[in-house]
């Protein structure tokens, strides 16, 4: 299953090409983008919905421990704004909840 060196470099270069192209296209099309309407609405919503899509299956895959940890993560991020602290607490919560009690 492990990634070979060739695959690693291919993944990185292809990702770099995509990510750079996005940066460059935004710059190139900057003035021509609609500032209102459907396109703007969709683009404004996209970052959040992508993260929702990214997170949800992972949380379910982690089971009830993951769901409880997620509550902690959300709470700490909201309270402190510290993403690192929230992440570490979430990981610690899952680790603790995985300890078999009997």
């Amino acid at each position: 299953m492990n990634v070979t060196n060739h695959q690693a470099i291919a993944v990185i270069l292809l990702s770099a090409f995509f990510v750079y192209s996005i940066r460059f296209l935004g710059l190139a099309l900057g003035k021509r983008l609609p500032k209102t309407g459907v396109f703007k609405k969709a683009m404004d919503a996209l970052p959040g919905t992508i993260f929702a899509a990214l997170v949800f299956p992972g949380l379910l895959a982690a089971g009830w421990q993951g769901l409880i940890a997620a509550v902690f993560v959300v709470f700490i991020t909201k309270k402190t704004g510290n993403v690192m602290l929230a992440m570490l607490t979430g990981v610690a919560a899952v680790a603790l909840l995985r300890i078999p009690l009997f």
Partner: protein
Amino acid sequence: MVFDKGGDFYKGFRASVPTGLGVLTYGLVFGVLCAETGLSFSVLALMNVAVFSGSAQAVIVGMWNDGFPVWQMAVAAAVVNVRYFLLTAAVAPLMEHVGWLGRAWRVHFVTDENWAITMAEWRRSEVTVNHLVGGGVCVGIFWFSSVMVGHSLGFTLENPEKYALDFAFTALFTALAVNMWRGKRDVLPWLVSAGTAFLAWKHLPGAWYVLLGGISGSAAAVLMKEGD
């Protein structure tokens, strides 16, 4: 001349140092996770320079050992970074007087952190593109060095599940998602996204769930009436 307005590069650099410290802690942990995942020092160094995006890199490394085809990992990285399109579009006016070659390298230095700082400064006073690039170089130095230090500290644990390291990326993405929450109007789009993502994750191979979830949620946002 761009460089005549001396000091804007340094101003941007200095203004980005506080967020650089945030990048530093994130980078250290990310570096440790990369070592844990099995990325070599040189592969990671190449990624830091070539991709230069925390969220895209986190997605790539999160999928690293799961047997995904190369193109799917790259598409997933691109999908979480579609927002860069909006960031660079917003700073396009700052680069109007720069030639295309000059724009081509400068735009690589746009990250969430220094973009926000330059935009805030731009609202208060006049800025040049050097402010943005100075901030980007600052963030880049913090990012590169902290990730590499984290990787060097990196230890490989006998069974990472025991320490819930397999949950690290999910926890990180959850925290990042909280920061993207725009309030009530996100409820429906996020539910649609999560539901679609779950179905796609169950039934489709690879990373399609990220793309399909994101797009369907975004479509839901468009279809909602104003004021919903």
